[in-house]
């Protein structure tokens, strides 16, 4: 058998299928003349094709469900299969058993459904198919036992019987009443569509029955109603019926008016013959565009839609027992208005309930005025229409590709082959990969993806030896894959080779080279080699700027990566400039709301916070959080990071009450999305630790810090800078408890880690130095503490420049050492110096200023200067001092009982209480 023969057989087979049985014989006689074998083969094929397909009646594959006897399978729904069954207990009756597919119900969803079962049981309306029972099979598959409804979907029912518009409206009103009944019982359907409204005949009258109430709620929230898929050839959901609020990203925001919208769509279809948005158009556009359309675009009114139908208008009108022109006239006006009101994007403008909708229809039928008014111009103005969204661009690009493909296919055999080759080339790489899966290989237990990738790499090197560019491309991909999987060594090998190949054969200035540089830079950042990482991104940026210009998204991407690398290297100014540029490019090109903008804002806010510019950081973090919540949903990991950042910033701004909810949210999202042992939990945990420490709960703080250290060490290792963050916290906990030795250990360990991974000149080293100085001072080693602080001062001045707030802190810490050493004059001088710097850098109300006054007051009190001490305390309070230590500071012992002091203590307590309150 050859390919040509196979193809020829197909041609003849298909041609024969097109002909009637009578024509086939003569046709084949002629076509296969002289080739009896060919004829035989085609006859055999036709025989197989024509063979009647046996009905499957076996029910063995479906496990038995207690109390029910399965009879036959009646269909495949969006969520699973539907069986006709006989209920055995407590009463014998025919039911419909809906078996939900594996993987569609999570524990949370099952719990949610439990609560709704009660409500479902209470529903009792002729237009609602009752749900009798729900549970899970022995195998863990959820099922619903419902009233068995034998009927036709409402749209095909009306079409088949050619019901007039009035008859359709009367039927529809009943549907509304049914839904209304459910709402009164507290159940929202969420998934109303014609296939869920079956029309049956009861005593000669047509009665609509709504099925699948409550089922949608039981399905995992992630996939809600509109995004199900089946194994059996049904489609990814029914976007035509999705309401605007469901097309937004928060799926919990559904209420009764969502059902009203869906009813509106059904009404639209009953009147005009099609749904307001064309299903295939929606699907072809891609999810973002689909959602945008539903949320923002106004569909044509039913009459306009009918008008625009052209040829098919006649069919639609026929099925309503009228002609095209009359139908358009009929719909124009009140029916248009009623339908469009039900379809309002803004829920507030919709009918508030199905009963209201039904009422307006009744008014119409009785020739009374309806409540839906004519929409005004201003209202038509779509607030959200944006021309420059990437979503739209991307959709049109791919649309063009698809159309081009189809056009090619129809032009001629030669060019069709080209399209085929393109399609097949898409498979080549994959096949190359999968053929690495060696069937004859060693019969070991499990072949891992790593092994397969290794074999693929060998194949690439072997078979593409003389095609360096293809090899480079594949190796870049492999490198990315390995990076994604955490295989750093393999990734590096692949990417470095790919880079060499591309530089050698393409030159250093080509975008492909930049692409590999990006991949390599990302890998290096994961490994912590920030110098090399910066070099990669810097080179990539050069290339992109030269080739694409300064406003291109790839330029922005390189800038963002570069900024990140600069930040980790401690080059704050370079990082800040790069972020600002990247942000500007993205905002200009994508609009202020785009996800990439949200990402840049987040990164920038992290930098600003690290630089001490907390107010700016707060603003950036809030904006980034808002964008990400909108674009990605509330439980997304990126949202968690933004929330964590905001919490950390607020904590540093001394608003623990406000910070705490964000911090806890960050942790809970991280746990949910990454699992309990992922190192992505470390940062949220550490931040929570600080919050607890601030509140005085050292035990809770320690617990968090320890867990953070554990997850870091067990995943990225003991040398990763993140471990030092946790050690900072543990050191402070130890200090609080008076365990100087332990504190010293923690800080020294942290210092070693930071020096080792970030370099001795990195600003974060200052954190370890600060803690270490405190530990040494507490142990009485004042000389040692001072030496450490001198080093910190030098570092701070080098990194941040003169006059930075960090210097104020260093000076203050130094002062404390002198106090502990008993050298009050020197201490006083340093406190003043610190206050000066702080006031110049951050204003007179900065805590270093107010605390400076406080500490000066303590010093005064210790020397017996009561008057001086009280004055200084007042100065402190005037500048916002609010540390609870004032209540039991031993240094103020001499002033206890003094009414002035007590008044100030009370005031501080009040301030602390206020500060701890949530937003």
């Amino acid at each position: 058998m050859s390919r040509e023969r196979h193809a020829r057989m197909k041609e003849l087979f298909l041609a024969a299928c097109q002909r009637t049985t009578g024509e086939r014989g003569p046709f084949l006689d002629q076509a296969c003349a002289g080739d009896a074998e060919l004829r035989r083969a085609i006859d055999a094929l036709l025989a197989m094709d024509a063979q009647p397909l046996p009905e499957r009646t076996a029910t063995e594959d479906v496990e038995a469900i207690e109390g029910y006897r399965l009879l036959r399978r009646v269909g495949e729904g969006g969520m699973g299969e539907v069986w006709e069954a006989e209920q055995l207990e407590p009463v014998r009756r025919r039911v419909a058993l809906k078996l939900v597919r594996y993987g569609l119900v999570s524990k949370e969803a099952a719990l949610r459904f439990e609560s709704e079962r009660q409500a479902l049981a209470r529903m009792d309306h002729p237009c609602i198919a009752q749900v009798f029972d729900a549970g899970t099979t022995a195998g863990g598959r959820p099922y619903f036992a419902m009233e068995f409804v034998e009927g036709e979907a409402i749209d095909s029912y009306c079409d088949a019987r050619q019901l007039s518009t009035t008859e359709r409206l009367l039927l529809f009103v009943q549907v509304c009443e049914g839904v209304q009944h459910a709402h009164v019982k507290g159940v929202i359907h969420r998934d109303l569509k014609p296939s869920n409204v079956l029309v049956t005949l009861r005593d000669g009258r047509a009665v609509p029955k709504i099925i699948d109430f409550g089922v949608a709620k039981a399905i995992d929230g992630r996939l809600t109603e509109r995004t199900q898929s089946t194994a059996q050839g049904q489609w990814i959901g029914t976007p035509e019926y999705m309401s605007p609020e469901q097309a937004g990203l928060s799926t919990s925001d559904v209420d009764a008016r969502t059902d009203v919208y869906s009813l509106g769509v059904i009404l639209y279809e009953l009147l005009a013959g099609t749904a307001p948005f064309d299903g295939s158009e929606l699907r072809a556009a891609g999810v973002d565009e689909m959602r945008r359309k539903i949320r923002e675009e106004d569909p044509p009114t039913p009459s306009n839609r009918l008008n625009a139908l052209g040829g098919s208008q006649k069919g639609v009108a026929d099925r309503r027992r009228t002609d095209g022109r009359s139908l358009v006239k009929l719909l124009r006006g009140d029916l248009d208005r009623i339908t469009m009101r039900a379809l309002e994007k803004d829920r507030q403008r919709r009918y508030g309930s199905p009963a209201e909708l039904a009422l307006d229809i009744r008014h119409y039928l009785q020739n009374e005025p309806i409540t839906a008014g004519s929409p005004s111009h201003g209202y038509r103005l779509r607030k959200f229409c944006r021309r420059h969204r990437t979503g739209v661009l991307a959709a049109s690009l791919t649309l063009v590709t698809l159309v081009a493909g189809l056009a090619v296919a129809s032009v001629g055999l030669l060019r069709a082959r080209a399209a085929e080759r393109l399609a097949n080339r898409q498979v080549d790489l994959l096949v190359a990969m999968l053929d690495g899966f060696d069937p004859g290989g060693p019969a070991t237990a499990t072949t891992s993806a790593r092994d397969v990738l290794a074999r693929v790499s060998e194949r690439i090197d072997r078979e593409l030896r003389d095609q360096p560019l293809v090899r480079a491309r594949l190796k870049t991909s492999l490198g990315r894959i390995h990076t994604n999987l955490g295989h750093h060594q393999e990734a590096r090998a692949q990417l470095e080779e790919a880079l060499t190949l591309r530089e050698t054969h393409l030159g250093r200035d080509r975008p492909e080279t930049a692409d590999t540089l990006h991949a390599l830079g990302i890998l290096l950042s994961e490994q912590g080699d920030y110098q090399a990482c910066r070099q990669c991104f810097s080179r990539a940026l050069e290339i992109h700027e030269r080739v694409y210009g300064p406003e291109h998204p790839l330029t922005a991407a390189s800038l963002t990566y570069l900024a990140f690398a600069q930040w980790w290297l401690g080059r704050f100014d370079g990082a800040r400039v790069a972020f600002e540029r990247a942000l500007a490019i993205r905002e200009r090109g994508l609009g202020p709301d785009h996800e990439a903008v949200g990402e840049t804002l987040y990164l920038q806010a992290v930098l600003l916070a690290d630089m001490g510019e907390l107010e700016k950081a707060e603003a950036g973090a809030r904006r980034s959080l808002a964008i990400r919540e909108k674009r990605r949903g509330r439980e997304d990991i990126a949202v968690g990071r933004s929330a964590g950042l905001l919490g950390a910033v607020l904590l540093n701004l001394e608003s623990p009450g406000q910070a705490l909810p964000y911090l806890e949210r960050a942790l809970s999202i991280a746990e949910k999305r990454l699992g309990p042992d992922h190192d992505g939990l470390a940062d949220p945990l550490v931040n929570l630790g600080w919050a607890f420490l601030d509140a005085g709960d050292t035990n809770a703080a320690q617990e968090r810090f320890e867990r953070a250290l554990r997850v870091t060490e067990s995943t990225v290792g003991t040398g990763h800078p993140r471990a030092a963050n946790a050690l900072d916290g543990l050191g402070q906990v130890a200090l609080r408890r008076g365990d100087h030795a332990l504190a010293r250990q923690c800080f020294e360990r942290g210092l070693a880690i930071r020096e080792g991974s970030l370099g001795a000149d990195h600003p974060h080293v200052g954190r370890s130095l600060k803690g270490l100085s405190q530990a040494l001072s507490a142990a009485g080693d004042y000389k040692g503490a001072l030496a450490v602080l001198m080093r910190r001062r030098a570092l701070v001045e080098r990194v941040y420049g003169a006059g930075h707030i960090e210097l104020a802190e260093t000076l203050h810490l130094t002062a404390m050492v002198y106090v502990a050493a008993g050298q009050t004059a020197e201490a006083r001088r340093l406190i003043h110096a610190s206050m000066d710097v702080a006031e110049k850098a951050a204003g007179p109300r900065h805590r270093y200023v107010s605390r400076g006054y406080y500490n000066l007051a303590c010093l005064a009190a210790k020397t017996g200067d009561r008057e001086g001490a009280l004055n200084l305390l007042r100065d402190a309070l005037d500048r916002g001092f609010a540390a609870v230590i004032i209540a039991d500071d031993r240094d103020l012992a001499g002033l206890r009982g003094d009414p002035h002091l007590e008044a100030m203590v009370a005031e501080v307590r009040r301030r602390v209480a206020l500060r701890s309150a949530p937003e």
Partner: protein
Amino acid sequence: MSLAVECCAIIGAVGEAVVPTDPRDRVTVIVSDFEADANRAGISAAELFPFVYDELRRLASFYMAREPAGHTLQPTALVHEAYLRLVDQTRTGFKGRTHFLAVSAEVMRRLLIDHARKRRAAKRGLGWQRVTLGVAVEGSEPEALGWEELLSLNVALDKLAKLDEREARIVTLRFFGGLNVEEVAQALGVSKRTVESDWRYARAWLRVELSRGARHEP
């Protein structure tokens, strides 16, 4: 004395912000990249492969362990479950999903064949005994194939692939991925009519081939 013990809350490290570590994040990025530019199909298929491979392998062994012996494995259900687990559907659409399913179908087929071979070699129960395909070979409903039948089917498919790759691909996508005609058309970049014709012919061809009797694997 206030020691100025500041709470220096740690601002989160940025590493992950640039490179997502959650596999679901990564896969979603790959799929949505593909959604934006379908010319990346080959690359993104390769990038998806290891995730899909690992996930399907895990799911398959999970189900095999959970189901009582003698039960049927539904590869298409696994493929769909892998999709749900690995992809955030609020950020991808029809094209991306189809692409993902297409990759999964190929992986699934190979995982099943590999397992069937091991099973034949072991001559003992090794989890599932039957497999339900996405569409029927013989009847109108998908029936359950035993592992021997599966191996025969695989031989036939390999033979078909040598005669016409697209036909074999269509069959693989439908059997092991459960893709419908529209989705297959999208995955291969051809018209629905082409898919329907090819499918009709390929199916008849397979039935003829399989009816010829046992063709054991070499």
